[in-house]
């Protein structure tokens, strides 16, 4: 099987790799780059625990081939913040918007993607957007409140990417 060359930005750093065409993105991130924050949940692209951002869009890393990110910018949970927490991360901390933590990286990235598109979403929009990912622990309301706090904190500031 011929390998394919991919060049992409990973958490702000350019990477170039040769990959098997059938290599899946989550395997590349966890196996090749040691970025364990992206969690494998259902492996059916239903739960969204493996959500990462590709050009700012939330995608299931378990259902994306590595070749699909060629030329794109990928951000994992590890790349969301540098010295201090991203507003969404901080809001999750402040609102205890997590419990077991397994859905949390994916959920945070999903929320960050929403706020990048819509800095001031109403509650219905937040609920609709968040329903892309499953959380079995929290019952969602505290996550919604965290997103609302992050939106309020981000108002007036530039994109935190």
């Amino acid at each position, binding site marked *: 099987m011929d390998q394919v060359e991919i060049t992409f930005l990973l958490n702000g750093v350019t990477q170039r790799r040769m990959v098997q065409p059938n290599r899946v993105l989550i395997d590349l991130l966890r196996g090749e780059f040691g*970025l*364990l*924050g*992206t*969690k*494998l*949940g*259902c*492996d*059916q692209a*239903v*739960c969204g*625990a493996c959500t990462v951002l590709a050009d700012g869009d939330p995608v299931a890393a378990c259902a994306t081939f590595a070749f699909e990110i060629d030329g794109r910018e990928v951000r*994992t*949970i*590890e790349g*969301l*913040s540098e010295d201090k*927490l991203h507003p969404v*991360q901080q809001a*999750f*901390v*402040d*609102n*205890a918007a*997590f*419990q*077991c*933590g*397994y*859905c*949390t*990286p994916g959920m*945070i990235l999903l929320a960050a993607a929403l706020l990048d598109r819509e800095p001031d979403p109403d509650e219905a929009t*937040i*609920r*609709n957007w*968040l*329903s892309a990912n*499953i959380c*079995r*622990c*929290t*019952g*969602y*309301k*505290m*996550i*919604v409140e965290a997103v609302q706090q992050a939106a309020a904190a981000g108002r007036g500031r530039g994109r935190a990417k």
Partner: protein
Amino acid sequence: MNEQTKLRTIGANLPRKDAQEKVTGAAIFTDDISLPGMLQAKVLRSPHAHARVLRVDASKAQALPGVVAVATRDDFDGMSPFYGYLIKDQAVLATDRVRYIGDMVAAVAAENDATAYQALDLIEVEYEPLPSLPEIATALADDAPELFDGDKPFGVANPYGTGASGYVYPRKNVCYQFDYETGNADAFARCDHVFEDTFTFSRLQHMHLEPFVSVARWTIDELEIWSASQSPFVVRKELARVFAHPENKIRIHVPYIGGGYGAKNACKTEPLAALLARKARRPVRLRFTAEECFLTNTQHASIHRLKTGVMQDGQLIARKSEIFLNSGAYADASPLVAEKAGYRINGSYRWQHIDTKCYCVLTTTAPAGAFRGFGGTQAAWASESQIDMIAHRLGIDPYDIRMKNLLNLNEPYVPAESGIDSDLREGLSLVADRLGYRNRRRRRGRGMGLSVVVKDGGGANKPAHAFVKATTTGGVIVGSGTTEIGQGSTTALTSIAAEVLNCERDRVSLTPVDTHASPYDQGTFASSGVAIMGKAIEIAANKVKREVLAFAAEDLDCDPGDLVLQDWTIRRGNEVHPLAPMIMKHFGGPGFEFVALGYYKLPADHDAPLETKIPYWENGWGGAEVEVDEETGQIRVLQLIISSDFGRAINEGACRGQDEGGAMMGLGQALFETMVYDGDTLLTPSPLHYRVPLASDLPDRFQSILQEQGRGPGPFGTKGGGESGILTVASAIANAVEDAVGVRITDLPITPEKVLAALDRQKADGEA
């Protein structure tokens, strides 16, 4: 609510202790454990619901390049291959029979997943299909085949006290029976009315996002395992017996667990992973797919036949219950669930006579086991539904009938049992008010329903050990076997130590859970973390504190009673004496650690029905308002108000999260979430097919009320609360539907079609 003295850490509502790790993706779970040379394992599962296994030949699989080990029933030399809670009926791999579609038959360990799957295709198995037992009724039919014929698996009933009894394999296809009786059956004769109703409860799957997973390796002498296990010490004991290998040479590590809700108790992946690792002589990772998780452990579906005798004024007198739990193909935790499903069917009320029989019926479906609520969710569905039905039949408001019959504060749940430690009426009033229940405007199509559920909490006869160490410079390390499954134990347990030692919570760390190094714990279940393990930690921390004060008193030549410990300094009046220099003066430069072990268990009480008085009562209140579309039968939940009494909240966010998370699970079960078996086939085999609540399912108004009635036996008046959230929701919604449109749904989920069919019948009856 009691006046509570302000504490430093308890109730300070700091961010959760595991927050930074979890929001940055740094938290390590079992999936993140990778060992050099680690192999991937896959399992061959039975395609038949019931069959004899005539032949298993894995030789072709073994020969496939990239396959390092295969395991079948031929590998059990020197092993006792059966495990289980009270009944050891489940084999590491099928021996002579398979008993449900999904039963494990053989396994391979290979260099990668793809090779492992190819290898599975090469394993030859010859089956002789047998009649299946897809449902409770089939299993109990006179002509039903025995799922376990001949010599029964080894099993022991639990010992019980007043009124309770348990039996192993009392009749065909029933692996356990729990009975409870108090009072006298002639109480029914006194009643003005006797109502008989049957309720059916559905089956949920835990669907924790992290699957069952373990990594096993054998070194020269020792079996070492990393596992997402809620009860590593129990698993260790089982593995010791299964492999005839001493417990001191079995070591189990438990990282963060990605959700459990009860599923991850006792042996799941560990025995098979250990077997493969031993054969492969390399580490083996056994990770179940989501689909395999559905085939491993589920909630119990059940049938409840309640015969309830009451007086005209609504006073509850007598209840006779027959409960059938669908235990699936193997017992797993069913005997324990039967105890609780049986014990909790009385609900929150006072009775003169109770007669309960609860049967664990074996069927050829996925094994049912521990699931949040543990028989109490089932009991609440039946009991809190029937209370409303009785109220309507008698022309009494459902709120009033509850107020009339609720157990009083400190009133024993049943004779010889501990007293209820929450004011149940206070809680009901709180929820009713928040809902707007009393004096509401009544109109057809919109209704409200209430529910109050009492659940024994903290386990029965459950011991807890913990240690606390304090270093030279005041770092505190707590050792405990409680696992963090998301419930917030990391936060709660470190907070307790910090409070006792009067230091910042940031100065307190937990040791990782490691059966070699952690003190013994039976497992993270029964909402026992705060009330039982927390006590052990409080005791240990207090011992450390006493030792430190005694040490300082000797140094300062005074009485320990004159001294106060604060932030690792000793205060004597206005004097401040830092401890570190004192310690180094005494022990030298390298310093010292103060260490103490704490042990806590409530005494056994052979009078009490469950052999010990229940430590505390985990009580939940719920209220729902719904709007019913009478043309489609669709229910819209306008409000869902739930409340629990946490005694005293260590961390509000953690308490609230547990309650709301449980409530949304209850909402899903009430309206749509269910495992659907069509005969032997699971039609909802994985997340792709199995609908769970999403953010879009949140009710318009969803609120949890955190009560702190202050009466918990845990440190500082705390109690547990991980399970009460789920208990009230289904019945509250069913009650609201009856209030809205006068139809009663007695099985779950409450689908639009069921409601519409009931409305059609109502219309037909009206026109008749």
